[in-house]
């Protein structure tokens, strides 16, 4: 990976083949000396990440209002979900509108394991993640032959099938869902009745992990393959990138973290039912921050979630949910961003230093 530092920031099919010969993806995490501009930029991103993490970790000291803390948890959760969605939708270019399926699977798996079998949440997260990753491979096997809109619509339908089945499956409580029992505060089950601070830190940890994984992906063999598949699948194929396998890997990784987020959400609200964890709106809520912030970028999903989720929550509470005004603002915003700044708001910040892509 000696030449990794000289690889252009923007992914091209040529860059993908250059890394095909690399021994292991892990080698890329230790850029070789002398530090090139690219290596410096990578390091700068890590420093930026650490600073943002530190500042976010101080937020609970300032934000003491229970409602605002709730918004903060949701914002961090959606930052993590959007970052996960970005792996498949942003880097690999496969616009999935069915990620609610994986979110729901994570939420249900963790709930079922805990409520029926007393399995700790942390294991439930991993189990839900693994299950969702497997499911993503099944969905991917069926859908990755499709391109563009055909693919997006197929993913919607897979999620709808999941939703219909959950509504009717007695084993997981059908339409009633699963209620978590009241128990003592515990880090094992992530149940905290009064003080919600632990949720903030766990959600922040989740954002940090997915961000770090994304950072690592950007300069890994997979990262170059995925961007090559996104930019030009035919060219990528002709240069030896296995397009189908690349998409499958991106889908599995993306689904895994989405399900971990779902498991966290289930513990946070202590309750799951089909519409509250697997509805189509979750698929959109995960994708929208990415579009707003900047698709296929490192900071886009976080930036998008930090703007979009508080805006959604505040407009719902101040304008009153259900009267349609919040939907109108939301719709106009989505349409406006898509039409005015389709490469995302992160571009506004990223002019210096060649961008954070």
């Amino acid at each position, binding site marked *: 990976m000696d030449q990794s530092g000289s690889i252009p920031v923007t992914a091209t099919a040529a860059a993908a083949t250059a890394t095909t010969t690399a021994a292991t993806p892990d080698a890329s995490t230790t850029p070789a000396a002398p530090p090139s501009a690219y290596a410096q930029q990578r390091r700068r991103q890590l420093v930026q990440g650490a600073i943002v993490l530190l500042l976010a970790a101080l937020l609970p000291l300032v934000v003491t209002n229970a409602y605002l803390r709730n918004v903060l948890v949701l914002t961090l959760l959606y930052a993590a979900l959007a970052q996960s969605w970005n792996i498949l939708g942003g880097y690999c270019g496969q616009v999935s509108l069915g990620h609610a399926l994986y979110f729901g699977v994570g939420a249900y798996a963790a709930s079922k394991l805990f409520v029926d079998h007393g399995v700790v949440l942390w294991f439930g997260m991993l189990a839900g993640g693994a299950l969702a990753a497997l499911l993503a491979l099944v969905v991917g096997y*069926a859908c990755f032959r499709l391109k563009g*809109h055909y693919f997006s619509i197929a993913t919607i339908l897979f999620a*709808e099938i999941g939703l*219909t*089945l959950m509504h009717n499956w007695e084993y997981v409580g059908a339409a009633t869902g699963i209620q978590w029992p009241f128990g003592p505060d515990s880090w094992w089950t992530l149940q905290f009745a009064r003080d919600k601070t632990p949720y903030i830190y766990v959600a922040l940890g989740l954002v940090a992990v997915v961000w770090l994984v994304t950072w690592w992906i950007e300069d890994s063999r997979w990262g170059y393959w995925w961007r090559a598949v996104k930019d030009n699948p035919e060219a990528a194929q002709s240069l030896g990138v296995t397009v189908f396998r690349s998409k499958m890997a991106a889908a599995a990784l993306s689904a895994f973290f989405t399900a971990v987020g779902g498991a966290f959400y289930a513990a946070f609200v202590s309750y799951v039912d089909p519409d509250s964890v697997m509805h189509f709106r979750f698929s959109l809520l995960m994708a929208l921050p990415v579009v707003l912030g900047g*698709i296929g970028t490192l900071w886009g999903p976080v930036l998008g979630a930090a703007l979009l989720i508080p805006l959604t929550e505040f407009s719902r509470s101040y304008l009153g949910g259900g009267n349609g*005004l*919040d939907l109108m603002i939301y719709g*106009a915003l989505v349409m406006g961003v898509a039409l005015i700044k389709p490469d995302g708001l992160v571009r506004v910040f990223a002019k210096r230093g060649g961008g954070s892509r």
Partner: protein
Amino acid sequence: MNAAAWLQVLASGLLMGLVYGLVAVGLSLIFGLMDVVNFAHGEFLMLAMYAAFGLFAFAHLDPVIALPLVAAAMFGVGALAYAGVVRHALRFKTNAGMVQIFATFGLATLIQGAAQYLFSPDYRSIKGGWLEGRTLELGGVFLPSAQVYAAVVSVLAFGGLYLLMTRTDFGRALEATREDKGAVALVGIDSNRVFTLGWGLGAALVGVAGAVLATFYYIHPQVGASFALIAYVTVALGGFGSVFGALAAGVIVGLVEAGTAALLPPALKALGIYVLYLAVLFLRPQGLFGKL
């Protein structure tokens, strides 16, 4: 179930299927014309249903009479959506698919929010229309008049569309633009104008569907979403862009749905359609009449 009951299932599936075809054809037409999936298609249907409801409630026009008015109004909505939103979304070359999805989806959310704000989330239905409560009996099969009317209108609309596309200059320009956008510019066809009219036509067709559905279906701000999902399946099944594929696929979807409803609990009604879609996905990803 005996033969007569199955005949009933078959008949009601066929009637609903013709309506599904009519709901889907505008979506397919627009996709064929310019490779754009309109994620606000369901909201167009919802607007048309509210328009029919409004004309009935305030102008005392029966939806049967109001149909041309609703279709004309929806033509304007479609043309406006193209000129105001979609045309701008087409400018972008990077992330093009993404921009189209989220621009039309944003429009859908905006329309839905506006409907909720203006019309309230209440469920409405047209009470006291001409067709309400009447049934037709055909050889032991009982059919609600409203659904028979809807199916007949659908067949007529498809007939009219066929004539429009084969016998008129506009239809030929539409067909030519579908086939080669670059070449039509050389013979002096303004593709922007064709796109505007194409969106108008697509929306007018879903307007006709909304006007007939309003005679027997409840109306609320989210009503479009459920029909939109069926429309996507219908279009994928018939082949994206294929106008008469939408008709055939609509009928198939209607029959499969009615069959599933007869065999499985009502909550699983949609499952048959999904399974059908998956089967098509595996066997013929381009749909029955589509080109990949």
